[in-house]
């Protein structure tokens, strides 16, 4: 169905023309109005979650384990080991909350997208606008948390500043994928599946302890999951240690983002423009 509406010149330009009117601003503007009038308290308070985890686990468990092996085999304090991992997790959670629960509600109950797509807006505009809002939120958290890490003396390299844009990349990957997957869900019970994936991913992705604690087969499985790449990437940035794997982690998220956005746009098209 979708192919028929693509302009004859086809290609990337044709795809854009068929999916977008170039008015992403309208979607973003609406997003900011909602933030300003309704849910700023929720957004601001979300900042505290990783900070509390860092204080509790970093100093509590840190007192029990002392230094651990950081990137490149150098010993680092336990709090410095988990801080970048918590930033990656926070970027994932923030992005996924916005792109799953919020999108599900708008899609199935508020019918917001149907309204938007009845105007000149195209599915790519809607997807890009929503993802932009998720990223804005991610940016706030990344700025705040990086400041906390720096204030606690847990960042030992100027490269730690690069954690901010990388947090956005991680958020982009998760947000675009989350939105595409959410578009398949029709009931609240199905939303449980998101938690069933997220909880083990958070618990096992080398966030709080190295994955060497697990058998080789389990390690391979964890290494296939996105959060692990995000955690490793952040950890390497926090101390400014780079190796070949850094590029792999980075590419993983670039690929995830590109695929996710294409997938989301396609889904919105097939949902509404039939």
């Amino acid at each position, binding site marked *: 169905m979708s192919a028929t509406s693509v302009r004859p010149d086809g290609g990337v330009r044709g795809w854009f023309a068929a999916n977008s009117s170039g008015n992403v601003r309208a979607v973003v503007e609406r997003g900011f109005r909602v933030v300003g009038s309704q*849910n700023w308290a929720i957004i601001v*308070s979300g900042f505290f979650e990783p900070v509390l985890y860092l204080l509790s686990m970093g*100093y509590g*468990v840190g*007192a029990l384990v002392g230094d*651990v092996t950081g990137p490149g085999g150098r010993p680092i304090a336990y709090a410095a080991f988990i801080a970048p991992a918590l930033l990656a997790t926070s970027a994932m959670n923030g992005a996924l909350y916005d792109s799953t629960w919020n999108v599900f509600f708008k899609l199935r109950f508020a019918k917001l997208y149907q309204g938007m797509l009845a105007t000149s807006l195209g599915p790519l505009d809607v997807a890009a606008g929503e993802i932009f809002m998720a990223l804005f939120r991610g940016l706030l958290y990344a700025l705040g948390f990086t400041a906390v890490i720096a204030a606690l003396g847990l960042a030992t390299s100027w490269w730690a500043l690069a954690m901010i844009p990388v947090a956005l990349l991680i958020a982009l990957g998760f947000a675009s994928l989350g939105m595409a997957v959410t578009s398949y869900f029709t009931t609240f019970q199905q939303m449980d599946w998101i938690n069933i994936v997220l909880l083990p991913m958070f618990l096992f992705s080398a966030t*709080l302890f190295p994955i060497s*604690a697990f058998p080789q087969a389990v390690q391979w499985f964890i290494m296939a999951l996105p959060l692990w790449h995000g955690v490793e990437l952040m950890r390497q940035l926090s101390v400014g240690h780079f190796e070949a794997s850094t590029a792999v982690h980075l590419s993983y998220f670039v690929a995830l983002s590109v695929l996710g956005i294409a997938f989301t746009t396609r889904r919105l098209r097939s949902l509404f423009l039939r």
Partner: protein
Amino acid sequence: MSELTLSVTPPGTDRVARAARQAAKVRRWGWWYQAEWRLFSMKAYLSSIFGWAVLVPLLYVLAMGVGLGALVDGRSGGIDGVPYLIFVAPGLLVSTAVMSFSNEMMFPVMSGFKWQELYFARAATSGSAGQVAIAELVAVTIRSLGESAIFWVVLISLGATSGGLSALMIPIGALSGLALGAPIAAYSATLANEGFQFSMIQRFVLNPMFLFAGTFYPLATMPIYLQWIGWISPMWHGTQLARALSFGLPLSGAEIGFHLGFLVLAATIGCVLTVRNFRRRLTK
């Protein structure tokens, strides 16, 4: 209304007596009928309750007990004389029970007043407004006992605790849940609209209480100015009792009395306030 019923048929005295008996039964047992209803209505999502009840403990115990445990045991040779897995297991049971109990006392309670308005319907029976509150607390306590029992079985099967006395962790888990869940229910009953209150409770009450309740390390590891969060957290009091039951953490009689006293007191105050607030709202 009364004329209508009178005019329909001349009611036989036995019918009047039967209705009176029925009403008396509801006055006496209404709280249980309503609790039963709440439990049966959970059947709709029983598989997901059961799935979570098994999955969550399994994941947490594997991640924390085994994963983090490898790190902790390698450095400090366990805590309180036992491997980390054994140390952390009772804390996970209690804090999971408290979290899940508390969640049942937020949106579902608001729903009873606002969206489904079930509480108003129940209060219109021969039962009392107070019974509506008690029914809610009883039903969720029963559910909490079930969930804690599943958690306990998972712990046993992973070798994270042994049988015998440790089975008493099941009621301790439910009591700890009630100690925080009941005050939350009392608060929820006062809310007219869903704002962000429940998210705020999650972020600024439940999460800090969970993170600073000595679940993952002894409370004394924390600096003193953070320890108070543990002292007011039912999770810490429940966890200490559960540790004594699970692996024999040495507690003096006074300590046991203190922890148990805190939980019973918090639960009692919470229940009294819940009944009061339900009654106020349902008899307005």
